[in-house]
């Protein structure tokens, strides 16, 4: 963060294209993730920092809010009926959580071989190994790697159930703001979405910007979106009493 930045700013960091990252975002802080060049993907996992057996739960998030995708106003639930974070702003409109991440075999099949031995740090990374890299730093592993949030990626479902990836969902400079309602371990990988039809391996740079915000007020749009979220936020507040 530059000298002279407003007092509420916490930090800024750049995630290089294809890189992985993890860190702690505390209750009452907001993380803006910016897809600088557009067309990116950020596969994200969330854990209660104090009890990491509590983590992002895709089904509980979707069924509480009767939605199959994430956008502004949506709360991201843990398996314990609490809200880990909520999406307070989103210039993109649709974030996937149905499709998981690609593994090494899928990346090699799609883009061809690209090893560290030849490419050094330009080698092709895959979401599965990238997330395992970060999880291992906290004594977490394969058993803890569940469905991800794939920020900036849009995948719709037809009436017959077929999945369709929508290129161009994320424009240059698109951002999503995650306001943290708990102290959360955030783990992310900026590798491409597994259904992205692009034939060249081209992950995008991501900008992370964190600031002090505050917990959701009574009239917060994420809280008042539905009675389910009112109860989810209440459950969350009990954790901090």
């Amino acid at each position: 963060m530059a000298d002279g930045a407003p007092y509420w700013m916490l930090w800024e960091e750049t995630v290089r294209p294809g890189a992985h990252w993890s860190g702690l975002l505390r209750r009452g802080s907001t993380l803006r993730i910016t897809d600088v060049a557009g067309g990116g993907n950020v596969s994200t996992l969330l854990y209660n920092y104090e009890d990491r057996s509590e983590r992002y739960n895709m089904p509980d998030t979707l069924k509480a809010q009767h939605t199959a995708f994430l956008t502004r106003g949506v709360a991201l639930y843990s398996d314990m009926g609490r809200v880990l974070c909520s999406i307070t702003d989103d210039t993109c409109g649709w974030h996937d959580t149905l499709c998981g991440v690609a593994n090494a075999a899928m990346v090699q099949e799609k883009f061809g071989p690209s090893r560290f031995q030849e490419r050094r740090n330009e080698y092709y990374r895959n979401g599965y190994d990238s997330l395992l890299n970060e999880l291992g730093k906290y004594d977490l592993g394969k058993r803890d790697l569940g469905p991800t949030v794939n920020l900036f990626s849009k995948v719709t479902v037809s009436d017959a159930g077929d999945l369709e990836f929508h290129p161009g969902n994320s424009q240059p400079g698109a951002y999503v703001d995650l306001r943290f309602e708990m102290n959360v371990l955030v783990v992310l990988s900026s590798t491409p979405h597994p259904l992205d039809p692009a034939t060249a391996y081209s992950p995008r740079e991501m900008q992370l910007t964190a600031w002090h915000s505050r917990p959701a007020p009574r009239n917060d749009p994420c809280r008042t979106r539905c009675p389910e979220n009112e109860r989810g936020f209440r459950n969350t507040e009990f954790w901090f009493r």
Partner: protein
Amino acid sequence: MMESSLDPGNASHRHVIAAGEPWMGTVLAGQHLRILDLEGNQAVDTLFYRADMLEERYSAVDTIRAQRNIYLTTGTVLLSNEGNAMLTIVADTCGRHDTLGGACSAESNTVRYALDKRSMHSCRDNFLLALARWGTQYGKDFSKRDLSSNINFFMNVPVTPAGKLTFADGISSAGRYVEMRADMDVTVLISNCPQLNNPCNAYNPTPVEVMIWD
């Protein structure tokens, strides 16, 4: 819709899971596992683990992404988190099965219905009780972190092109079944769903039967 030619009279193992109860078992590579909806519209929450290494387990997101369709039916290959085939659905007289709806829990019931629903019986309580009773027979340190997104056999969770997700009335009925061939040795963890707050069990949980053929 695809029927099976296997005769229940020749099954090597048959077990009726009473309404609202859990079950654990092993299915060996090449064996067939059938789950029979005895009275109709009964959700069967199911997880699979590689028998000799529970770190490898059923992955809902890998399974639906690989087949590019969210519904499970005949021909669906149930994939693991490592991308390996665990089981293949070889017969299905229901039509389609859910893998997005997850399992009900005391905590999610407080969110979805009311704070005073916490005391109602739930699938996660079944899973946790099954692991407490029998978990060490199947794997060291089997615990809550191993309860990833499950399959809900016979459950109907339609998604619209606009992204709306609902729990709809069931499309199963008495006598319908789904049958899988195991592609590796698997541990099976089932909760015969006790949920009373939505139509996934037609508001009346009922027994189901599991059958295994060599």
